[in-house]
């Protein structure tokens, strides 16, 4: 029997976060869904509570905890009832800012990471474009030097927090790829969103994650200073591949947590709902499906915990993380679909929270590298 990776202190943190999520976030989930917007106060409030920098060192305002504290947060946030919240916060804490801590200068850490940890600055990550997503080499957003500055032109698509972000951690081409290194010529930049030429072209309408703002961004001659370059010029591909590991892992943890919540709801509902004279959970057909859901969740949870353990120990576990991402994305949608089915007509109704979770869960198979891309990564690493 595997022992829990969580210490007593992690469990106390979990209790505090769960209370915050239940008391302060959950009451707003429905209104945020209707408005297509999470209230801005969520960032500074979570910053005040220390939740935007659990694993960030104390010198940048963080809590200095290990990765398991981050896991606790990612497991608890879905309990607010809106998948948009863990996504928006996950972008802030585990997608847009870790590259600053890993590759940034001290000045960049103080100027971007520290205020992001406080929730004073909202962060976004800019990788995808209208004609390039997982194929990072194909990006066309281009920066050219102008004295000590850079001028950026291009477009970024599917940008979570895109309407409200103060800065975007952005993947930009700074040179053509060299013939002997097809991954070269790409760099990372920290781009302030209030610069002239930075424009939110439109807010995207989506099937799920509706409370989260997703933008198409146009960059038209955006002049950034030389110190907006993050990490080493031309090494952006390697840097963003590292970033994607954290992004996929946090997504997988959230997927398992969302599935767990769906399962708990299905369990409660089928125990209560009666048909033909007894609770439907007492029918073997229902019971076995609940068992399959629980088993499905537990398998993926253990796979994800193993990858978290590797990540926490500093191992660069690309294969395992791709497997987690693939398994969790598929499982969480499968479980959400079963939960909807077990809720019958109520499951399809907007009056129950199941349909929202079902719509939200669908994203994971597409975002952060689709199922197909994860399979391609794994095949490559298997030497196929």
């Amino acid at each position: 029997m595997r022992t829990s990776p969580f210490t007593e202190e992690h469990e106390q943190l979990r209790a505090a976060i769960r209370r915050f999520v239940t008391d302060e976030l959950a009451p707003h989930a429905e209104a945020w869904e209707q408005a297509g917007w999470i209230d801005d106060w969520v960032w500074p409030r979570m910053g005040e509570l220390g939740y935007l920098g659990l694993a960030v060192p104390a010198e940048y305002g963080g809590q200095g905890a290990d990765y398991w504290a981050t896991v606790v947060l990612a497991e608890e946030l879905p309990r607010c009832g809106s998948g948009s919240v863990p996504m928006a916060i996950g972008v802030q804490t585990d997608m847009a800012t870790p590259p600053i801590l890993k590759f940034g200068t001290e000045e960049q850490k103080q100027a971007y990471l520290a205020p992001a940890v406080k929730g004073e600055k909202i962060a976004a990550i800019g990788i995808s474009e209208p004609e390039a997503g997982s194929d990072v080499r194909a990006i066309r957003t281009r920066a050219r030097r102008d004295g000590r500055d850079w001028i950026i032109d291009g477009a970024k698509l599917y940008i979570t927090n895109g309407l409200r972000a103060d800065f975007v951690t952005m993947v930009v081409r700074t040179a053509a790829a060299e013939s002997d290194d097809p991954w070269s010529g790409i760099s990372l930049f920290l781009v302030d969103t209030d610069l002239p030429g930075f424009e939110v072209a439109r807010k995207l309408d989506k099937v799920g994650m509706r409370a989260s703002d997703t933008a198409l961004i146009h960059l038209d001659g955006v002049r950034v200073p030389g110190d907006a370059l993050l990490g080493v010029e031309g090494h952006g591909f390697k840097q963003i591949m590292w970033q994607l590991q954290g992004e996929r892992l946090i997504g997988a943890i959230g997927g398992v947590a969302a599935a767990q919540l769906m399962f708990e709801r299905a369990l409660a509902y089928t125990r209560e709902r009666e048909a033909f004279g007894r609770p439907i959970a007492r029918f073997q057909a229902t019971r076995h499906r609940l068992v399959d859901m629980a088993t499905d969740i537990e398998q993926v949870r253990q796979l994800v915990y193993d990858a978290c353990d590797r990540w926490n120990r500093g191992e660069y576990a690309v294969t395992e993380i791709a497997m987690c991402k693939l398994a969790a994305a598929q499982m969480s949608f499968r479980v959400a679909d079963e939960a909807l089915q077990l809720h019958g007509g109520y499951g399809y109704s907007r009056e129950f929270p199941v349909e929202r979770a079902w719509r939200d869960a669908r994203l994971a198979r597409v975002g952060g590298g689709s199922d197909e891309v994860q399979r391609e990564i794994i095949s490559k690493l298997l030497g196929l």
Partner: protein
Amino acid sequence: MKVIVPVKRVPDTAGDKPIDPNDRTVDRDSVESVLCPVNEFSIEEGVRLKEKHGAEVTVLLVGPDSAQPIVRKALSYGLDAAVQVSDEGIAGSDALGTARVIAKALESMEWDLVVFGNQSADARTCLVPAAVAELLGVPSLTFARYLEVDGDKAIAHREHEEGWDVVEAPLPAVVSVVEAINDPRYPSFKGIMAAKSKPLTVKSLADIGVDPASVGAGGAAATMYAFEPRPPKAAGTVVEDDGSGAAAEQLADWMTEKKFV
């Protein structure tokens, strides 16, 4: 300024609290123990006194060694140190016995102000804070919904059925607070981690000079003779609205009868 915040370990307030028929006390092995929810408000007052006046705040808990996680939990909110009185002789104490132990423990410590919760979530007697003040011969400001310290006096708003009174007392004093007094914060991860290394002193009854005969089941002034489970909730009255307005009348009659209006 030195402040003491006494806290209590209680059975999980959400769960059933079965009574052990042998000693007529709550069967603690069958329920999970938690920090008394009322203490979150007294601890928050302690933290605020620390922030505002630089007070040094110590947690005091009377309870067995197994209650130590509760002490750590209380410390995780940002308090400085803890004293735990642990002694088998305390088992079965009533409110007066508990007050005797706390009063003696307080005599062995330095303090200007003691901030209690007004009642514990399990026994709910509301007796202990005033009894402790009486035993120590210091003023007590109970049921405070507002508290401030101004120089060498404590000022409180004492809650009652018709509103509140503004009361004050010179320090040292004992205060008990009600839940309306503040909005408790959550412990931070830093606080949770720091709680592990904060000083905790464990004392026995002998250490604080308590006569064992005056506390515990043997020293109890109150005796429980019998207990029975709470009767099941009676079914409510359902008023059907047939559109004639009779339902509204029925409802109004019922509310008048129950003195709601």
